[in-house]
């Protein structure tokens, strides 16, 4: 994945395991009955439901964002009118992990 585009790869950009460096990373997985939900989207929202970013879920149901530090809302959309959300806090140098169960 090159940074000369703004495209969102399925699952989010890969990082070295748990290494946030100077980034504030939010990542997670969407599961249904223990199995990954590979068809769907994760959205990162700011205050007042302000859209910030979106990635399609990866084959493992995963997603990843590189946010500014602060409070965020994660929303998951999937076929079958699935719409789930959780609040999350991002910090520089931290990988914040979130799990959604459909």
């Amino acid at each position, binding site marked *: *994945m090159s940074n*000369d585009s703004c495209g*969102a*790869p399925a699952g989010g950009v890969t990082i070295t395991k748990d290494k946030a460096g100077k980034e504030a990373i939010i990542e997670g997985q969407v599961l249904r009955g223990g199995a990954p939900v590979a068809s769907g989207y994760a959205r990162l929202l700011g205050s007042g439901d302000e859209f*910030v970013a979106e990635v399609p879920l990866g084959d493992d149901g995963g997603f990843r964002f590189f946010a500014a530090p602060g409070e965020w809302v994660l929303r998951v*959309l999937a*076929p079958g009118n699935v719409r789930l959300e959780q609040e999350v806090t991002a910090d520089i140098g931290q990988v914040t992990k979130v799990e959604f169960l459909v």
Partner: protein
Amino acid sequence: MSRSDVLVDAEWVEARIGAPGTVIVEVDEDTSAYDKGHIPSAIKIDWKQDLQDPVRRDFVDKVGFETLLSERGISNDDTVVLYGGNNNWFAAYAYWYFKLYGHQDVLLLDGGRKKWELDSRELSTDVPARAKTSYTASEQDAALRAKRDEVVDAIGKQNLVDVRSPDEFSGRLLAPAHLPQEQAQRGGHIPTAKNVPWSKAANEDGTFKSDEELSALYKEQAGVDFGKDTIAYCRIGERSAHTWFALHELLGLPNVKNYDGSWTEYGSLVGVPIELGEGK
């Protein structure tokens, strides 16, 4: 021009799968999504491999575009229906690109790949074989594409619409939040630009908002002067192609250009003015 002349829904596309004279094209940067499943009969165009010059930063030239469309089996008189991921960013970019090279009959699938998937519509892994054509492109339409000197000259004169997220606009982030942030260029925005994130033009399922909502968004909420010429930009020009589509194709504003150099070019220029923080 009305909305139905440029934007079609899934039912319209489903009824024309495999129809002669209609070519459905999925456009993405990451074409692995196409490979895993696409709208039946759709071919693919890779935003980077097919539409960008492999050496210098620019589009493929007229001959290159003619070669691409000829090889993909697209004729000058075909109806081309574009869709893609990322809320149709790359499909909107391709739409703008097709218009730039003079293709007349081009449409965008409202909601793109996302809505198609969320609606659980059929996806296929069959790759259609299309006979080669002999496509003839026009010279690029300069009325649709803004270059850097024109953008600098437009400060304080034309509408500049920055469609990135508020954190990118203010300089807090250098890229969308799904990408790493370490970039070479400076943060901020072009002075006098209004920040109207592309996402405000779209519903959660990726479809465009209504004409009334779009008009209120740009004119009343953001203060874009519909009587002036407009240049839209983002980071590399694909999100702003989405906004160009909303302003030029849906709302019918006559003089709207997409600045595809966008922030990766402007934010790296020596000596140009940059504004930080919230919009003024």
